């Protein structure tokens, strides 16, 4: 992932965390799907749980950022 690049405007984020989140988002939520049912049977509940965690933390972080901006 050495050529991963990004433009971030606003508060400081940890770029390594962002790179990992972006990578997880791509490999878990996107891409060609041939056999969805096999994905679930292999990955079991862990895969779904991890996917939800990424989404929930993203939304919470977004709310937190806006809260900070309003109190500034």
């Amino acid at each position: 992932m050495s050529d991963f690049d990004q433009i971030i405007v606003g508060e400081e984020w940890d770029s390594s965390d962002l790179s990992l989140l972006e990578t997880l988002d791509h490999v878990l939520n996107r891409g060609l799907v041939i056999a969805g049912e096999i994905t679930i049977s292999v990955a079991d509940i862990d895969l779904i749980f991890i996917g939800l965690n990424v989404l929930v933390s993203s939304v919470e972080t977004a709310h937190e950022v806006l809260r900070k901006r309003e109190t500034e």
Partner: protein
Amino acid sequence: MKLYTYCFAESLNGLNNPPRGVSGAPVRLLKIDGIAVLASITNGFRPTQNDFIAHAAVVRSVFKQAKSILPFRFGQILTEPHLRNYVSRHRQAIKANFAHLRGCAEMNVRMIGTRENAPPPIVNTDKPVGPGTRFLLDKRREFRGDEWQAARRAELSEWFTEKLGQLKRDEKINVIPSDRIIIARADHLIERGRIPDYRAKMAGAIEERPEWRFMVSGPWPPYSFANIELEFGSQFGVS
């Protein structure tokens, strides 16, 4: 024998220095009806963070060496006959998608903004209503929410077209409203050689909207443009 699959690749006869795949397994190149498939032999595994990263690393490595690739979503394990059958049935669609994505990379824009112009409430929910009315009101609310999201997507697409012009070869936009904010994501298909132009134009566009927060990332392998939606989406409900 089961295969953990990473991507389809166009015109690839070998892979230089491939990274290790999931569970540390070697990555193999199979040719099925002239289409290269990158895969590892597996008996199944419980995924860890390292496996997600390994999947991404293999796809990225192939992306750098092939003219065009279709990355798989994490977790696709197939028998070889199943894979051969899929390629044989979808060969033309795979080739058409290779042509669409050839020479291009995916760029992502994430946006967070304050929610404005939200759809107005339809009914005073303090009033008691029967189950039938409640059902119809919920459907109506859902429909209006969809309309609102479609309108926001259209606005964003128009804005990107104004700012990027012919740079974007393809685009997907998702809008997720919550109570107070909008989170939007745009995926753009950009020719690899024009990514510096894209970055410059996006940097200029971002400056024009200080009320929004942006993150632009890429270049990525074209994960968001890899699905063969017409032939597959309706069968399995893949988005």
